[in-house]
């Protein structure tokens, strides 16, 4: 279970998160919505441990372990995963190689290259990513959709306890959206304890990946929590009224 309490964080001296409270239980999907600039992406970065953000106050606990102050790699080893809104390209670093090393670091077990490759190929097939992607440099020359699929591919391989998906649906056409959603659901089937924070602007993806709860952020705070019907309200009335 991930428990975020009174989380306050700043970047370059500017406070962005002003006391966020959030809980994600094992196996739960929490949709985080909110207007532009409400701090959703910042929350994702702060949870994952991006060095550009400083936590000023509050706690981040994963299964009782305090994560604040841990570097990003240590958080990943505890079980956090962040799918970036804009995944970065890393020239000359092949997806297969890098992910195998990451897997070994996280799972603390060696895996034979061919064995790992088979695992990776199965996941790639599900996401309809051609095999050639596995040997290309991570995200280099990938289209927007391919990048998003690759993020989910990484999530499926690394099997985190909590995955934060930051606008995984942005820039996806309807077919790609369905494929990504199916892969997320498949990952949950394989690992029913996987908790997901699904950051999004739109209802669309929530038709395929059903949230247990919907949380609305505004000006660096959670201002409303509700069930799925909250999404419909937001679609109709916008964020102004909240």
């Amino acid at each position, binding site marked *: 279970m991930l428990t975020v309490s009174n989380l306050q964080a700043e970047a370059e001296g500017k406070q962005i998160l002003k006391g966020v409270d959030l809980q994600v239980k094992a196996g739960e999907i929490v949709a985080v919505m909110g207007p532009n600039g409400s701090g959703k992406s910042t929350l994702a970065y702060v949870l*994952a*441990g*991006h*060095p*550009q953000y400083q936590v000023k106050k509050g706690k981040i606990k994963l299964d009782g372990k305090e994560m604040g102050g841990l*570097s*990003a*790699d240590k*958080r*990943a*080893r505890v079980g956090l*995963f*962040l799918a*970036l809104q804009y*995944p*970065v390209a*890393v*020239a*000359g*670093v092949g997806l297969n190689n*890098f*992910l195998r*090393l*990451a*897997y070994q*670091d*996280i799972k603390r077990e060696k895996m034979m290259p061919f064995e790992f490759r088979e695992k990776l190929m199965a996941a790639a097939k599900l996401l309809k990513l051609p095999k050639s992607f596995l040997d290309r*440099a991570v995200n280099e020359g990938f289209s927007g959709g391919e990048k998003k699929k690759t993020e989910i591919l*990484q999530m499926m391989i*690394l099997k985190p306890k909590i995955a934060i998906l930051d606008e995984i649906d942005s820039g996806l056409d309807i077919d790609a959206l369905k494929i990504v959603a199916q892969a997320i659901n498949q990952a949950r089937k394989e690992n029913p304890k996987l908790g997901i924070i699904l950051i999004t602007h739109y209802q669309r993806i929530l038709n395929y990946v059903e949230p247990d709860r919907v949380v609305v952020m505004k000006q660096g705070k959670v201002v409303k929590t509700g069930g799925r019907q909250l999404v419909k309200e937001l679609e109709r009335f916008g964020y102004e009224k909240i």
Partner: protein
Amino acid sequence: MKKFSSDYKYGFHDQVTPGFKVKKGLSEAVVRQISKQKQEQGWMLDYRLRALEIFWAKPLPNWGADLSGIKFDNLIYYSRPQGQQEKKWSQVPAKIKKTFDRLGLPQAERKWLAGVKGQYDSEVVYGSLKKELKQKGVIFLSMDEAVKEMPELVKQYWGTVIPAGDNKFSALNSAVWSGGSFVYIPKGVKVTEPLQAYFRINAASFGQFERTLIIADEGSEGHYSEGCTAPAFSESSLHAAVVEIIVKKDARMQYTTVQNWYKNIYNLVTKRAWVGEKGTMIWTDANLGSQVTMKYPGFILAGRGARGEMLSIALANKGQHLDVGSKAIHLAPDTKSVIISKSISLNGGRNSYRGLVQINRGARGAKSKVICDALILDKYSRSDTYPTNRINDNSATLEHEATVSKVGEEQMFYLMSRGLKEEAARSMIVNGFVEPVVKKLPLEYAVEMNRLIELSMEGSVG
């Protein structure tokens, strides 16, 4: 932070007594002494003395890196180790042998080199060349031997690509040069394995001024490479080499440098190739060490269809300023140059790319492509580019791409958020970044290069 010196594998120093050395400081007497030691003919002494005048007359460059820390009066300009250049490894003095052993010379020679030179301070102490190459007429001598044994051939090319007056440090080299290599590859001969020189500075507050001249005759091929290391002293030393290369019609020459000086060295080197019709010159240049480097290996593309390529990697760590680049001079039609410069700055290190592309009138259809990529790994480090383009022919094409970005930080976070430790993530990014250059190297160098890059970054994590 760990000290850099603890990670520098080559920082050891030998207690050896030189066979001869000049008093510290530079003067006409010192130049005469060097020439006398070498029992040179008059033409070379005259050349040295004229060059010394030029050196005195030229000011220090007012651009590039800060050179004000060079104490010209404190340096020793010539120090000859005991003994001669040996052809048998067993005859090299024990201590010096041990040094080159630690640098991996004998192993590399056995395994995959066509020929070797080992220079220790001012003189070449060991040299070898495979028999079959000797029989084909390939010449691989120390520069001193060549000046003595084949003065006519040397005179014909000496100073033709880089005149003494090219810059202050080429003038200094011309005045006090010692050691270096002379290579001649006859027409049509292809030397497939590299000829390698190992440059070692052992003395403190010393200046190493080797001089290299390579002639690749028509249709020939060769690969020359050099590696440089020095002990971990706190006093600065100076390395000011001159490398001239002549690539004749249809010939192909590659020159690889792995510069791994300790961080007390001012490395101010002039390197240039003249390339004839359809000839190809490739510089592969890696700068990992030194306190300051200023170096712009270039090519004069003089014959129709001549090609020049410069692929460089510079890694500037704490306390280093590497000002490197290239000069491509297009004199003839259909000439082509490619300059790819990759720099990595970390822990406050500073890189500059400085380059010139000049396409003269009449160089119809000349093409040049310049790509500068800078990887800056933290906010304390710096990278700049200073490109100069002079295009005087309207049919020429010039492409210039420069990416200077701090993408390094975002990449670090990305890989670390997948569970990779900081050092693993950093070395993965850096190795991926330099890959396009490293893959242009023979396998042995590529492996060595990756290893050195890892070593240079080890302990760099704050």
